[in-house]
Each structure stands twice: as structure tokens, then as C-alpha cells.
């Protein structure tokens, strides 16, 4: 009986080959912040660990031709948070990523690892859902791109096969007329996981009409989730008169939280509605979007 074998492949292809060989025995880590905690608590006990840290070129943050962002899976949360182009193109993404834990964690944890960990209490998935992010996946059968919304399956579970890797995160351009915000409810400590979190995006016409809307929530279900009914209620409304009561009702009905140390399910359900309302009111009161 020994400690797990620690592999450091030099490329994505090498990592995929290794994982194909290891099958269910292999466990992928990038920054290893979450995985180490799970291992220490005995929740995972892999016989082999595939550490992606030696792969070059997977941590870039670049503009895409359409003005969106492509973020390499190995970019650290701190790199995303402080990237000038993220701050310019998607400032709320930089903000929300900067709310994760502490700067020590953010210096080590990666955006790809954060998503692949599939923890419904994390901050980045929530804002990325509101921004319609997509993820690139590479595996033995080639590469594919899918909406982030389709990526999460359950607590700590994604659609990734045992030999598949998340390689990059693509954020479409955020229209200049969009109002985007993120709220993280932290009644305990500044470095805690959210009791509930909510991200919203309102794509607003010059006359105030809401052309499209996104409402995403964290810590309220087995996966980071979008509140589709709330989005439908907002779509076609006016920022001067958002149907907030109805949205709160829709959000409250859509979430499915559990009792834990951060609160009872009933409290989280109520807080999900409250923070959605607070966020929408704040966005509605933001300076008018330039025509």
C-alpha cells in the first residue's frame, strides 16, 4: 500500500493517453486545492493522480476574433481576476472570480479545475452561466465544445469522461448595453463559500426594454443553475419596471437547496429570492445604458 502515483504529462494528448490507460483509477488535478481537501477527508482515494501543471500553453487569456474571451483551463483564478482584458471585457467575471476563498487559494486554483470540480457552491460557474460561457473538452475521441449549462451533472460530477479534459473556457462578447452583476451572500466569514449566490445579466435596449436576461444561482441546488422561468419573466420587461415579485417567486420555486452549516434549506430558498431581488434592483438602478 503506497501513496498514489503522481504523473505530470507534458501535453494534453499525453494526459489523455495516460488517463485512457488508467481508466477509473486516475484522478486529474490542476491547482489541486479542492482535490487535496477531498483526499484528506477520505472522500476520494485515487491510486494515480494526473497533474496537469506541467502542460504549457493552457493558461492563456486571449481575446477571440468576435471580441469574446478564451481562457485556458490552467489559468489561475488570480490570473483571471487580475487580467486587464477580463477586467475590460467582462468585469463582473473578474469580480466574481475574485470572491473565491482567499488570495492564497486563488493563486493556486485554476478556472478549469474550479469548473471540473463541479461544486455548486463555487463563484465562477454562477457568473459564467450568466455570461453564456462555453467549455472546450478534449478526449480520446477528439474535441468538442458545449455550453457550460450542459457541463454539470450533479455535485462533483460533470459530463467529462474518465479520459476527457476541460481545456478552455470561452466567454462570448458581452454587449455594451448589458447590465451584469453578482451577489455573494456571506453571513459567516469573508473567505467562506456562499450561503447563496446569484448572477444576473440584463441585455437592455436604449428604451429600457429587456431584450434578454440570465439569472444564475449557486449553493441552491446540486449544480450551479439557471433560473429559466425567472429569465422568461424578465425577457420583454422594462428595466424601469422589472417584475421582481414574480421573479422572486419563480426563483424560490426553482431552487432546491439542502440544509447544511450555512443555513437551512428554507432559509437558503428565501435568501435566493431576496438576493435575486436585491441584485435586479441594483442593476435596474444602474446608470442608463448609452444609446
Amino acid at each position: 500500500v503506497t501513496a498514489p502515483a503522481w504523473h505530470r504529462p507534458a501535453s494534453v494528448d499525453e494526459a489523455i493517453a495516460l488517463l485512457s490507460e488508467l481508466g477509473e483509477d486516475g484522478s486529474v488535478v490542476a491547482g489541486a486545492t479542492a482535490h487535496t481537501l477531498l483526499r484528506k477527508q477520505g472522500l476520494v482515494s485515487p491510486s494515480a493522480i494526473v497533474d496537469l501543471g506541467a502542460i504549457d500553453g493552457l493558461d492563456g487569456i486571449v481575446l477571440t476574433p468576435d471580441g469574446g474571451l478564451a481562457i485556458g483551463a490552467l489559468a489561475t483564478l488570480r490570473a483571471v481576476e487580475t487580467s486587464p482584458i477580463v477586467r475590460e471585457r467582462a468585469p463582473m467575471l473578474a469580480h466574481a472570480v475574485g470572491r473565491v476563498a482567499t488570495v492564497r487559494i486563488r493563486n493556486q486554483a485554476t478556472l478549469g479545475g474550479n469548473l471540473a470540480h463541479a461544486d455548486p457552491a463555487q463563484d465562477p460557474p454562477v457568473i459564467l452561466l450568466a455570461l453564456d460561457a462555453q467549455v472546450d473538452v478534449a478526449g480520446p475521441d477528439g474535441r468538442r465544445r458545449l455550453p457550460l449549462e450542459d457541463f454539470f451533472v450533479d455535485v462533483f460530477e460533470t459530463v467529462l469522461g474518465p479520459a476527457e479534459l476541460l481545456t478552455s473556457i470561452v466567454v462570448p462578447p458581452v454587449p455594451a448595453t448589458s447590465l451584469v452583476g453578482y451577489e455573494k451572500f456571506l453571513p459567516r466569514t469573508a473567505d467562506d463559500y456562499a450561503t447563496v449566490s446569484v448572477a444576473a445579466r440584463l441585455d437592455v435596449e436604449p428604451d429600457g426594454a429587456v431584450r434578454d436576461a440570465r439569472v444564475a444561482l449557486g449553493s441552491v441546488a446540486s449544480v450551479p443553475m439557471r433560473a429559466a422561468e425567472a429569465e422568461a419573466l424578465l425577457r420583454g420587461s422594462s428595466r424601469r419596471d422589472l417584475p421582481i415579485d414574480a421573479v422572486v417567486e419563480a426563483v424560490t420555486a426553482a431552487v432546491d437547496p439542502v440544509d447544511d452549516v450555512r443555513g437551512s434549506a428554507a432559509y437558503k430558498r428565501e435568501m435566493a429570492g431576496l438576493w435575486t431581488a436585491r441584485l435586479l434592483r441594483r442593476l435596474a438602478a444602474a446608470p442608463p445604458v448609452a444609446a
Partner: protein
Amino acid sequence: VSAPGAAPDAGTLEALRRPEERIDGAAKVTGAAHYAADVARPGMLHARFLASPLAHAEIRSIDVSRALEVPGVQAVLTGEDVRGIRFGRRLQDRPVLCWDRVRFVGDRLAAVAAETVEAAEAAIALIDVELDELPPVLDVDAALAPDAPILHPDPSGYAYLDGERKPVPHLNVQGRLLVERGEPDLDAVFARAARVVEATYRTPMQHSAYLEPHATLVWIDEDDVAHFVSTNKTPFGLRKQLSVATGLPAERFEIDAGYIGGDFGGKGYSVDEWACYFLARATGRPIRAVMRYAEELGQVNVRHAALMRLRTAVDSDGRLLAHEARILLDGGAYAGAKPLPHLSLAGGTATLAGYRVPNVRIEALTVYTNRVPGGHVRTPGEVQALFAGESQLDELALALGEDPLAFRLRNAVREGDAGAAGEQFHEARAIEVLEAAGRAIDWQRPRPAGRGVGIAMSGRHVGAGKFPLRARLHADGRVEIVTALPDQGAGTWQVLRRSLAVAASIDESRVVLNRVPTSGAPFDQGVGGSRTTHLGSQAAADLGRQLREWLEERLPRAVPGVAEGAALRDDAIVGAAGEPLASFDDVVSRLLAVDEPAELSTVYEHAPHGPGEPGDYDFCACAVEVEVDPGTGAVRVTDAVLAVDVGTVVNPVAHRGQLEGGFVFGLGGALLEEMHVEDGAVTTLSLADLKIPSVADVPRLRIVQIPTLEGPGAFGAKMAGELTNAPVGPAVANAVAAASGVRVRELPVTAERVHRGLTGRSADS
């Protein structure tokens, strides 16, 4: 330089005001300090343990045959191998490994020693246990029911250290403290009161949350002496416990405490040491165990959860007339983590320690349940009792329509008054600290909706006892303190160094510390009980005075023609007019050139005060301003003040750290720290779930120090470590009530509890 009891002179005060450079600072920041988990021996094996998954069960069978087949496994022990051997600090009621019954989730069933931690863990996973579940006793009320299952049916066989255990009113009671003062018929007093408030308060199981986990390395040498490197702040205590439990002489156990990385009450009790000792016997090899944090949280030593029923009455003048408190402290499955003779918590009767109440009945019971053993966590008992008492005072003031601070000032002890539990004070500083805290927080200022202020006060004794200490003056001018006393991080060694240096009037950097195992130093009580600065400073200052006298007597030998009146001052020999005559180094090297080092030794003793006798107390008032979010119930502390009466400060940096750290510790307990338990099992098994405050969560904090210089320690020192945390919880709860109208009678004052109150549901259900 002062003698005990006298105020220090200006020169001494100036020397004490210098920010200290800690004696252990360089070793700690460079990594040179080795903690127990850093120590290894050739041939060392690693120990892991099998813990009970059930809160209460009979053991039907344990099969270790598959575990023994794991490569690298050298020994597997079960309760059968150590049948009858139990451990504990005072009452030895906890089995090293259970042989007939398990009494909490985490009780040990087996121990494995293997070449690697992984092999030991693999073996643990292969041990087959059959348990027959028994009905668990999961709360104190259930435990005290007449027909409750009895967790320890025959405690008469348990060893009790130093004396005889007092009888208990129910077999599920571990220990009891009872205070009765004034009229015997308390009901009659309540019946004639102008106003009575009655309520039930709760505080949760809480953890010390030290950084360093418990660790130990045990080996047995060729003379059959068992050596322990152990994270235990009372090494002589552990030695004695081992001796009593095994029936072997104390000299057969050698305890080396090493560096200790944080304590907060939890490092006086050792668990792994016991099974490791038997594994070392079984294998003949050194055994090391390092606790996982999940084990720390679920298996060792927690703050007793408390259920507290109080009623308090005032007369028509608004003066406290009667107070009754029944404090039920959840002691968990074993009493062995508690050191005091009564097996209760000394602070458990401190509901109203700083207030005059003529008629009182306070009972503090520690109770057996099928939960993690309750032990000492910073300011044990006071944290629970004070929350109830100080919350109730506010409720009483509000019922009378009176300002809570004015109500306290009317009822707080003044010089010569006794506290509610009969405490007698050398210096009663209650009024001063309450007034100072009120001024600093600007108590009377009107505050906007959603904001409010709250206050609470603690009066806590300065510990006492016996403190032996030795030192050697070497020819090179070094002064070597020799002690087995550990420093758990509070700065004990630096107290010894500075007290010796200041009393001798030598440069502090000359004083070095030689920490030795138990065989190399006289018995000491270890660190704890708010006694260490008091006693240690006195012992070290006495050595400093001895050193000065030793040197001054011998000056004629070292300084030819020296005149009368020459003295050691500021690290040099000076004449009667203060003129420099010789350097300390020259004189010492001449005096000790041919001799052995000069040996100095002392035993400082200050007996704890008996009932009704005046004792030394620190007073502290904590006032906070909070803001309550009306939508969520979330509480933010926007301003905080501590007014403290702490005597002379020996080490200003560490002292400030104790006061501030105590506040933050209290803030965690006030707002967020709570160990969750399901079916008797702790479910908050990591510090990611059981959060504690970080520096980002600390509000503006000001400390007002009442200028007093009459503490019992050297130079007038008192204590600081267990003072400021206890009043924070009730101050916050009282401020929340002022800000929102919601009275939360249960710690922590979480957002959800306040929200429940705001929305009209009961806040404390």
C-alpha cells in the same frame, strides 16, 4: 525592581514597555522550531486508529485477521489487548481502546502500527467490527432523566488522581459545582420580587481550532523508560496519568513537550499517546501518530455545549435581589478531558461574576452523553455562563425600561462587594471597565435604524499554584533558564526571560531557554488556568534578584578596590554614583573562570484563594456596535471596544495579541462557530465547514486599559489570555437585540437565527 505586591519603579516600567523580541521568535519564523510531528526516530512506525461509527453500542466482535495481512503492518491492537486500561486527566474513565462498549462516534476500537501511514490506513479499513447498537443519550436533559441509560454503570473502578471523587446526584453526572448564598428559600425571595425574568439559553459545542494538530512520538529505551514527544502543555500531568493508569513508577515515563503550535485550552489532554505507548510495547519500535483535523474535531476535546435555565429578580429599586441558574454542560462520553477536582467547569458558576446579588443558587453540572468528550477550551465555563447571565441582565433591564449600562452600573460590584457566586475581589474594577467601555463606544449616541450597541462584562480570577524554576549563569554571560514548561504560543518563555532580565537588570538577550524533558526539571503544573504569567514572572524575577545578589556579593573578588554601594544596573557594574566600573561580561568571566556555572533555583507559590477569601481578578467590559441586515438577519460588528484591567504588562506585543486574539476568538463564538452534530456524530469535520474568523472579518477594535499596577505577578502583572473572549458573545447578542428587537438566546447569533426573529418566528428554537 519590585518585591511581590509593590508597584514597580519608573525604570522597571520603562524596561517592561519595550516591545519584546520573543525568545522563540527566530526559531519559529525560520522553521528551526521542531514540533512533535516533525520529530522522527530510526525504525519508526506510523499509527492509525479505528473509530466507532456509532454513538453507543456493545462490541460483539472485532476481527483483525485481514488487517494483519497488509504488507508493512507490524501490530494491530484492540480493546482485548489493553482491557481495563483507562486514561484521563483527573478521572480515568476513557478506555485506551474499547473492549466492551463504545460511547461516542470516535471512540477508539483498534490501533494499527505499520511502516507507512498508508499501510496503517489500509489495515484499519480491513478490520471487521460487529456492534450491537444501544439507545444513545444525545442531550443533557435526556441524560438526567430518572430512567436514562447509564453510560458508566460502575465508575467506582475508575482511578481518580490526587484525592477522592465527590459523590454525584445521578450516575450520568460527571461533576457538580453548587453555590448557594443568602436566604435558603429562594422561591420565597422570587415571590416578593418587583420583577422576574426567566429564560433558557444555549451555547454550542465549539473547538479550540489550534493550527497544529496533536502529535506524538513514543519509544521505549533499553532501560524500559518510555519516552514521549507530545503536544501536551502539562508534561508532568501526562507523566502522572500514565503512571497511575499503568501502575508503573512515574520515572519510567519521560515527557518532552517540544514546541506547541496553539492551544486555546485543547492541548492539556492527550489521546493518541496511550495507544501509541502500547503499540511501542507490542512492536519494540518507535511509534508516531499525527492527528488528522477531522479527528481533532470529532474525537478529542470540545467546548461543552450548554443548556442554561436562569431566572433573576430585582427589587423595586432596580437592584438585583435573587438569581438562580442551572447550567447543564454536555461533557460527552468521558470526563477524562477535565483536570479539576470537581470535574465540572470552574467558570460554569460565573453567570454574574461581577454583580452584587444577595440570594443565589447556581448549579453547574457536567453531564455524560454519547457525544465527543467535553474539555477545556479557552475560558471554560465562563463563555457559556456569561452568555446566559449577561443576556439575562439585558432582558431584565429592558423589562424595567432601563438603559442596560445604567442597570449594570447600579448592580456591579464595588470595592468590598462579593460577586454573585461569592467571589471576593482584591481589586473590584467592574465600575471602571463598564464606564470606560461605555465612553469609548459612545453609548448614549443615537444610532440609525438597524444599528445598536451592547455591552457585557467578565470578572475572571488570576490563576495560582506552585512554580519551580532553575537557571544557570555561565562564564560567557549567558543566563540559561532550565524548565520542562512548554510554551503553547502565548509567550510563556518570553515572560520568564523578561522577568528574570528586568529583575536582575541585565540585557534580555543574555537569557536563553533550555527546555528539557520531565526528568531534567522539577515538577511544574504546566501551562493553563491563567496562572502562568502570574507564577512564572514571580519565579523568574526571583531568579533575577538572586542573580543580582550573587553577583553583587562577589564584586570585591572581581573588581579590585570596589567601594560599598556598587551594583548591577542596566547590564553593567556601576558605582554608588552610577559611574561605570566594569562590564557584566568581564565580572562574570572572572568570577566563573574556574568554577562551574552559578546555579540558581526557586519555587514560587501562591495558594489559590479559598471560598470566601479575596482573590485576584481581572475585569473586562466589551462593548460592540452592530448593524443588522433587516432582509437577511446578517449581523456585522461595526465597532468594538474592550476595557480591561490587566495590571502591569510584561510583554507588550504578546499581551496585545492575547487581548485582541481573545476578542476575535470571542467574535467567532458570537457570530459563527458552531460544531454541528447529527446522531451524536460531529459533521463539521473540516475548517472549511467549521469556519473561524480571519483578519478580514475583524472590525475596528479599540482597547482601553485601566491603569492598575497591583496584580499578583511580578511587577504587578495579572493575566490576559482568558479575559476578553467570554464577554463578546453576550455583548453581540445584546447589541443585536438593541439594533433589531430580536433576542437570540443561543450562540452563535447567526443570520438565520436573527432572520427567524425578524420574521416573527421564534429566534431560539
